[in-house]
């Protein structure tokens, strides 16, 4: 969407917070605090009826005191009854977008709905992009903007978030902090009176700061229009969708025999597959799929090699792959021969490539490069990172450290795990193929140098191989959807 007003929302020159308060529990305080604390570099204006100083900013008692053109976004924390006048005043000083956190609109019955309709008509007349009402706010890391009534402010990255539920914006951003894979834009659509989730997604699809969109939706007003929008978005960029309230769908659809079978959300699932939308079942699956799209190249095929330092992990990962669109490719003979030169004969000689503890100092980086570079391999999952650093942790904490040679070996192990994580990222970059690293240490002991180094390369360290497989499956399904439709 080329609508310039979305730039006012996400990259405003200046922001007015209307309804600021000196009470640290009020939205008007929290929002101003969050904007000022997150490092936003544009001009910030505060306005309320009483005046005074809030967080060191003198509150204006009239919006007309804002110099014309100095602010293009207004963040509204005033009661619904004040907002018609407020929008008119904002338009007169050049505001192009309004985010309304105010409640008491469509969610509050007939009178609220009437006021909401009135507001939509007014915003339309004034040429203002109306976001909300009853929303949590907007985040935009390229502008260091955190205009919302809640935490957190996420790390910068390339995931664009839009949600019908404000709390899911927070959930996704919390997961961005956990994984280290950051966010470009995030917005809570609130009542979506004028601007809907697909409207934001449409902007993200053409937004250079955004590589992938992530959305939470519940009710859909016009299914057919929704389908057309999301298909057009998926043609441009990956779109990951988490859908709530699936059970409200199919209940009506029980008329015919065919309809009886449709009485669940299979229609929605089919719609997503047709549109190229990546549908996730859980919050963490949704975030990790988006984070994987944002940080790994799309696979060109579905042939996966699992490389593991221990047998059991490989077996479970093979089981997980068997349930997906991915193929645990039979190891090509030439690759097998090359691996033979790097490992003692006890290695698995098959896929999963189980090193069976036969590796020496340089084996893992060498094998990651060899396997990823093979033309019959489309993606690699690497398991076993961080084991030695975990032992190093115990040694560092034990009473013998740093004597008995422990200082040296601890440093070696930690250096090695860092190297391995970097080698995985390097192989991915060299051959333009996904290379995913999984270990439960990513969540159990996130300061382990292995997961730390994975995050430093900008990638997700998956908490289990099953989660890595699920993410890679999403990537391949999307890549295949594009390939089959001749989309580059």
């Amino acid at each position, binding site marked *: 969407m080329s609508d310039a007003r979305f730039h006012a929302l996400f990259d405003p020159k200046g922001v007015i917070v209307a309804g600021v308060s000196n009470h640290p529990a009020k939205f008007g305080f929290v929002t101003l605090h969050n904007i000022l604390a997150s490092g936003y570099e544009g001009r910030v204006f505060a306005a309320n009826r009483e005046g005074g100083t809030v967080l060191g900013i003198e509150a204006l008692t009239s919006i007309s005191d804002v110099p014309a053109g100095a602010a293009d976004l207004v963040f509204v924390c005033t009661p619904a009854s004040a907002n018609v006048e407020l929008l008119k005043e904002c338009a007169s000083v050049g505001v192009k977008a309004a985010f309304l956190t105010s409640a008491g609109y469509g969610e509050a019955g007939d009178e609220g709905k009437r006021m909401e309709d009135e507001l939509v008509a007014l915003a339309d007349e004034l040429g203002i992009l109306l976001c909300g009402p009853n929303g949590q706010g907007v985040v935009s890391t390229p502008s260091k903007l955190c205009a919302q009534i809640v935490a957190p402010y996420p790390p910068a990255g390339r995931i664009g978030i839009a949600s019908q539920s404000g709390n899911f914006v927070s959930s996704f951003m919390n997961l961005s902090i956990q994984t280290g894979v950051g966010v470009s834009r995030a917005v809570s659509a609130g009542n979506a009176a004028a601007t809907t989730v697909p409207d934001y997604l449409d902007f993200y699809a053409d937004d250079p700061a955004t590589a992938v969109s992530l959305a939470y939706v519940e009710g859909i007003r016009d299914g057919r229009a929704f389908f057309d929008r999301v298909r057009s978005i998926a043609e441009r960029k990956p779109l990951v969708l988490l859908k709530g309230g699936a059970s409200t769908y199919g209940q009506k*659809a029980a008329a015919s025999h065919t309809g009886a079978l449709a009485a669940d959300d299979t229609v929605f699932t089919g719609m997503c597959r*047709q549109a190229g939308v990546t549908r996730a079942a859980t919050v963490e699956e949704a975030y990790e799929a988006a984070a994987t799209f944002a940080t790994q190249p799309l696979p060109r095929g579905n042939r996966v090699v699992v490389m593991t330092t221990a047998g059991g992990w490989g077996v479970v990962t093979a089981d997980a792959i068997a349930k997906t669109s991915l193929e645990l490719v039979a190891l090509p003979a030439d690759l097998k021969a090359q691996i033979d030169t790097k490992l003692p004969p006890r290695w698995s000689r098959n896929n999963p490539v189980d090193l069976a503890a036969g590796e020496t100092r340089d084996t893992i980086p060498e094998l990651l490069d060899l396997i990823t570079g093979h033309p019959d391999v489309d993606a690699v999952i690497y398991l076993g990172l961080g084991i030695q650093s975990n032992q190093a942790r115990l040694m560092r904490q034990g009473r013998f450290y740093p004597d008995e040679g422990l200082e040296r070996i601890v440093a070696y192990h930690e250096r090695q795990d860092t190297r391995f994580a970097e080698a995985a990222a390097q192989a991915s970059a060299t051959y333009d193929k996904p290379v995913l690293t999984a270990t439960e240490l990513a969540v159990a002991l996130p300061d382990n140098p292995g997961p730390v180094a994975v995050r430093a390369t900008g990638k997700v360290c998956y908490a289990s191989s099953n989660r890595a497989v699920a993410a890679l499956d999403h990537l391949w399904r999307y890549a295949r959807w594009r390939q089959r*439709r001749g989309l580059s």
Partner: protein
Amino acid sequence: MPTLSEATSKRVLAEAGVPVLDERVVASASEAGDAADALGYPVVAKLCGDAISHKTERGLVRLRLATREQVEQAADELLAAARPEDGDVAVLVAPMVSGNRELIAGLHRDPQFGMTVMLGVGGVLAEAVKDVTFRLVPIERVDAEEMIEDLSMQALLGPFRGEAAVDRERLVAVLLGLSAAAQADPRIVSADVNPLIVAADGSVTAVDALVEVAS
């Protein structure tokens, strides 16, 4: 909402490209015999009419008729079983298709997404198994192919208990035909192609079809 007779339903779908069984609609026992001679034995005979929808429950389907004599007798009995409320009736004669694998396909108007094409695993356990997939009309060939991939029971679609793999091209034709039928006639509210029999050679045949149209 009114349903079209089996013969009309099949004609509507066949015109849109759904491969349906070669069959004849006749008005008398001797015509039924002629039709069976032309189609080859064994055949199926059914009573059909716009107001008849529960043929099996009323005993209006006769299977595995192997001789002209059996066909003529069945046709006489079927015509005699017609009730006044059935309106105009005729006898439908079709080749007897048998197979161990059954699929279902259809059109269904979703309250949220509008007209959809459906494919599922059929048979008596269909509703319990719920191995079914949908796409929004219109679908492209690639969508039809992906619908077939969607079914969980892929084992049923491959070589199965000594029988050949399902003819996916024919299955694609069924789905594309349904989509085309829905586009061609906006009055169609639903269509039920049930069963789609997969024969031992893997061929797919729409044995029965019911189209519902807006009144």
